[in-house]
C-alpha cells in the first residue's frame, strides 16, 4: 500500500531501502534552475569513483524556492533534502557523505532528522495527488507499482461493477479540479447513461492559467497516476478510447506521458484485454498549440478534432454529445490522479479529508512575491492565511501583503481582510474569485492592482476566440479604459463604464472565457477601488508601477558618481561627471528601470 500515513511528514523515513540513493528533482522548473547539470555531475562523480550510490531522477519535490533540489535517501531509510545545488557543490558533497556520512548543514533544507514535523511548509500539507511526485522515478512503472499504483485499476476490473465505481467516486465527494467543481461521479454517470457509442474519456491537461503549474508537475512527476485514473473512468463509463490534450509548452510532460503509456501497454495495463479481462482501452496524446480558450471543454474537443478551438453552446454537454458527437467524459489531470487514489483506498478514506461540501485535498502552485513558493497540496478547509504565512512563509523581503490572485484570468484578487477565508469551492466563490485550477499568485505593496486587472484583461482580450461580440469587443473596450487609467489619462466616469461593460461581457458570452473575463476587474474594483481612484483623480499610482504616473530621480545624498547608471541607460538620459552626483533628464527618461536595477548604492528613487 502507498505510504499515505506519511501525512504532513513528507520526508519521513522510508521503511524499504535499496542502499543509498541520490535523487535529483528533474521537473521543468528544476531543469530551468539548472538541475540537469547537477544530475549529470552527480552521475559523473559516482561513476568515476565507482561509489555505491544510485543517482536517479524524480519529479518536482515541491520546494521550488530552493531549486535545484537533491534528495539523499540513506541506507537506513532516512532522507535528506539539499537545496540550491550546483554542479560545483554536488561532487564534494557526495565525496564527503560517502567518506563519513556527514553533510554540511548549510546545504540542507529539510530531512528526516532535520526539519520536518516542525516545518510548517511540510506539516500543514497533506499529499494525496502529489504523494509520488518528487519521490519516485516518473519514468519507472515499477516504482509507481511499488507505491500501490495500478492496484486501484486491478481492484476495479476484477472486483467492482462499473456502476459501483461511479457510486464510489460519488461517495468520495470528489469535485472537478479544473476549477468549476462539478461532482466527478455525476459527470461519469451522465456519460455512462448517454446514448451513443463509442464513448470517449478525455483528460484536459491544457493548463492555460498563467501562474499555474500543478498539472505540469503532476504529469512530469507521476504520469501513471493520471493514466490509471483515466483507465478506471473508461472502465466505469464503458469507453474504449481516450485522449490526453496537453499543452505543447510542456515538452517534458509530453515525453513522460509517452513513456508511461508505452510502459502501461507493455505491462498489459492499457490496450487490448487489460489485465486479461474483456476491457480494452487506448490512450492517445494530442498536443495543444497555445490557445487559452482550449481549456474550455467544447473548444478543447474542437481542437482534438483538428479544428480551430472555438467553443460552442452548451447544452448539449460533452457527456451526451462530445468528441465527434459521441458521449465524452472530460476531467482534468488532478481529478484523474485523485481517482486512482480513491479507488485504491476507498471513498470513505478520501471523504475523511476536507470540508462538508469540498472533500479531499487541493494542489496549488504558490508563486509571486512569496518567500517559499512551490508546489503544495493541502486539505480543503485550510485558510488562505495558513497557506500564505505558514506554508509560504509570508511575503518576500519583509514587504506588506496586498492580495492573492486565485483562478487566473477567470478568477480574482482576494485582499488581506479576507485571508481567513477557507479553501473550499463555496467560500472562495463568495470572495468573487474562484477556486480555479490552483494557481495562487501572491502580490505585495509594490503590485499595482489596476495594472494587474489590465494585465489579465490584456490576456483574455488576446485569447478571446472572437466568436461572441461582447467577449471580442467588450474586453477590448475594457482594456482601452484600463490602459488609459494606468497611463494617467483616466476619466471621472471610467469606473462606472468598466462596471457596465463587465456585466455585459459576462452575460453576453457563450463560454467560460468571456463569462469570467471581467472577474479580475470586478474583484479589484470591489477591494481596491481606492487605487483606481488614486489613478483617476490624483493621477498617482500608489504602488509606483504605472509608467505614466511615475518618475525616476537620483538621490544626491546617496549617489557616489560611479557612472554605472549612465553607462547602462539605453537612451542617454543620465548626465554627470565621474565621482560627481548624477542626474536624470526627465524629458529623455523612458522609465525602463535599468538605472534602478544597476545602482548598487540605492541612489535611484521612484516617485
Amino acid at each position, binding site marked *: 500500500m502507498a505510504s499515505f500515513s506519511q501525512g504532513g511528514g513528507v520526508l519521513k523515513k522510508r521503511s524499504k531501502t535499496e542502499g543509498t540513493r541520490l535523487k535529483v528533482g528533474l521537473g*521543468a*522548473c528544476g*531543469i*530551468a*534552475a539548472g538541475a540537469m547539470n547537477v544530475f549529470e555531475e552527480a552521475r559523473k562523480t559516482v561513476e568515476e569513483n565507482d561509489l555505491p550510490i544510485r543517482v536517479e531522477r524524480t519529479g518536482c519535490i515541491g520546494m*521550488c*524556492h530552493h*531549486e535545484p533540489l537533491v534528495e539523499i535517501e540513506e541506507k537506513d531509510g532516512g532522507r535528506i533534502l539539499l537545496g540550491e545545488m550546483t554542479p560545483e557543490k554536488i561532487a564534494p558533497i557526495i565525496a564527503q557523505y560517502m567518506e563519513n556520512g556527514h553533510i554540511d548543514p548549510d546545504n540542507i533544507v529539510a530531512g528526516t532528522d532535520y526539519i520536518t514535523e516542525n516545518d510548517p511548509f511540510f506539516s500543514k500539507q497533506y499529499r494525496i495527488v502529489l504523494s509520488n511526485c518528487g519521490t519516485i522515478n516518473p519514468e519507472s512503472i515499477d516504482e509507481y507499482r511499488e507505491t500501490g499504483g495500478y492496484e486501484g485499476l486491478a481492484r476495479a476490473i476484477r472486483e467492482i461493477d462499473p456502476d459501483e465505481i461511479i457510486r464510489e467516486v460519488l461517495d468520495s465527494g470528489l469535485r472537478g479540479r479544473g476549477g468549476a467543481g462539478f461532482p466527478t461521479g455525476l459527470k461519469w454517470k451522465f456519460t455512462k447513461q448517454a446514448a451513443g457509442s463509442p464513448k470517449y474519456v478525455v483528460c484536459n491537461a491544457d*493548463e*492555460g*492559467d*498563467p*501562474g*499555474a*503549474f500543478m498539472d*505540469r508537475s503532476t504529469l512530469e512527476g507521476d504520469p501513471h497516476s493520471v493514466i490509471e485514473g483515466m483507465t478506471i473512468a473508461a472502465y466505469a463509463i464503458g469507453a474504449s478510447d481516450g485522449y490526453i490534450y496537453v499543452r*505543447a*509548452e*510542456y515538452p517534458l510532460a509530453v515525453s513522460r506521458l509517452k513513456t508511461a503509456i508505452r510502459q502501461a501497454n507493455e505491462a498489459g495495463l492499457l490496450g487490448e484485454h487489460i489485465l486479461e479481462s474483456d476491457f480494452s482501452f487506448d490512450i492517445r496524446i*494530442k*498536443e*495543444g*498549440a*497555445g*490557445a*487559452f480558450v482550449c481549456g474550455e471543454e467544447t473548444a478543447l474537443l474542437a*481542437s*482534438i*478534432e*483538428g*479544428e*480551430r*478551438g472555438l467553443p460552442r453552446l452548451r447544452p448539449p454537454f460533452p457527456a451526451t454529445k462530445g468528441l465527434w458527437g459521441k458521449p465524452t467524459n472530460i476531467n482534468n489531470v488532478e481529478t484523474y490522479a485523485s481517482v486512482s487514489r480513491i479507488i485504491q483506498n476507498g471513498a470513505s478514506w478520501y471523504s475523511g479529508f476536507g470540508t462538508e461540501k469540498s472533500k479531499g485535498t487541493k494542489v496549488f*502552485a504558490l*508563486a*509571486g*512575491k512569496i518567500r517559499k*513558493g*512551490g508546489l503544495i497540496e493541502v486539505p480543503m478547509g485550510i485558510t488562505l492565511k495558513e497557506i500564505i504565512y505558514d506554508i509560504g512563509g509570508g511575503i518576500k523581503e519583509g514587504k506588506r501583503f496586498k492580495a492573492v*490572485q486565485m483562478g*487566473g484570468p477567470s478568477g480574482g484578487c482576494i485582499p488581506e481582510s479576507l485571508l481567513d477565508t477557507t479553501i473550499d469551492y463555496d467560500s472562495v466563490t463568495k470572495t468573487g474569485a474562484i477556486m480555479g485550477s490552483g*494557481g495562487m*499568485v501572491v*502580490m505585495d505593496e509594490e*503590485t499595482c492592482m489596476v495594472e*494587474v486587472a489590465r*494585465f*489579465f484583461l490584456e*490576456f483574455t482580450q488576446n*485569447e478571446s*476566440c472572437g466568436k461572441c461580440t461582447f467577449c471580442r469587443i467588450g474586453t477590448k473596450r475594457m482594456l482601452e479604459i484600463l490602459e488609459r487609467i494606468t497611463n494617467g489619462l483616466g476619466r471621472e466616469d471610467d469606473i462606472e463604464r468598466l462596471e457596465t461593460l463587465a456585466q455585459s461581457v459576462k452575460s453576453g458570452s457563450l463560454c467560460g472565457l468571456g463569462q469570467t473575463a471581467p472577474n479580475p476587474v470586478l474583484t479589484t474594483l470591489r477591494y481596491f477601488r481606492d487605487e483606481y481612484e488614486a489613478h483617476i483623480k490624483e493621477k498617482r499610482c500608489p504602488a509606483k508601477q504605472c509608467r505614466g504616473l511615475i518618475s525616476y530621480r537620483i538621490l544626491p545624498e546617496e549617489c557616489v558618481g560611479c557612472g554605472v547608471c549612465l553607462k*547602462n541607460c*539605453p537612451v542617454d538620459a543620465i548626465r554627470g561627471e565621474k565621482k560627481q552626483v548624477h542626474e536624470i533628464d526627465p524629458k529623455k527618461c523612458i522609465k*525602463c*528601470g*535599468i538605472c*534602478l*536595477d*544597476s545602482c548598487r548604492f540605492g541612489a535611484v528613487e521612484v516617485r
Partner: protein
Amino acid sequence: MTQSTEEFMLDDIIRGCPHSRDYLISILQAVQDRYGYLSRESIYRISDYLDLPESKIYGVATFYNQFRLKPPGKFQIHVCRGTACHVKGSAGILDTIGRELGIEVGGTSKDGLFSLDTVACLGACSIAPVITINGKFYGRLDNKKVQSLVKKLKRQGDGT
C-alpha cells in the same frame, strides 16, 4: 538538388503523420518542429495530403499562438508573460529586449539573428521572471541582467 531534397524531406514529415483530418494540428507541429515555421510550400503540401483547402489550414495555423508563418531567428527568444513573471516585472524585460534588438513581439531582426515572442506561461514561476532562448531557461532576471544578456548574444551573433 537541395530544393528537391528539402521537398522530399517535407513530404516525408507530412506523410509520416496519420492520414486523417484530426491530425492537422499534429502535422503542422511536426513541420514547424523541423523547419521552425510553416512555409507556403508546406501548407500547400499538407492541403494536398489531407485533401483540405489551404484556407482551412491557414485558418487553423493562425488561430493557434504556436504557429509561425515566417522563419524564426537564429536566437529565438520567448518571454514568459505569466502572472508570477508579470508581478516581478516581465513587462519591463520584454520592453528592454525589444528595444535592444529593435524588434516587436512576433518579429525577427533584419539580420535574421533574433526573433522575439511571448508565451502565456512557462510554469517556471519559482524563478520568475523567466525567458527562454532556444529553449534554454534564464530566470530571476531584471532589466539590467537582460540588457547584458542580449548585448552578449549580439556580440556572439556578430562573430565578434
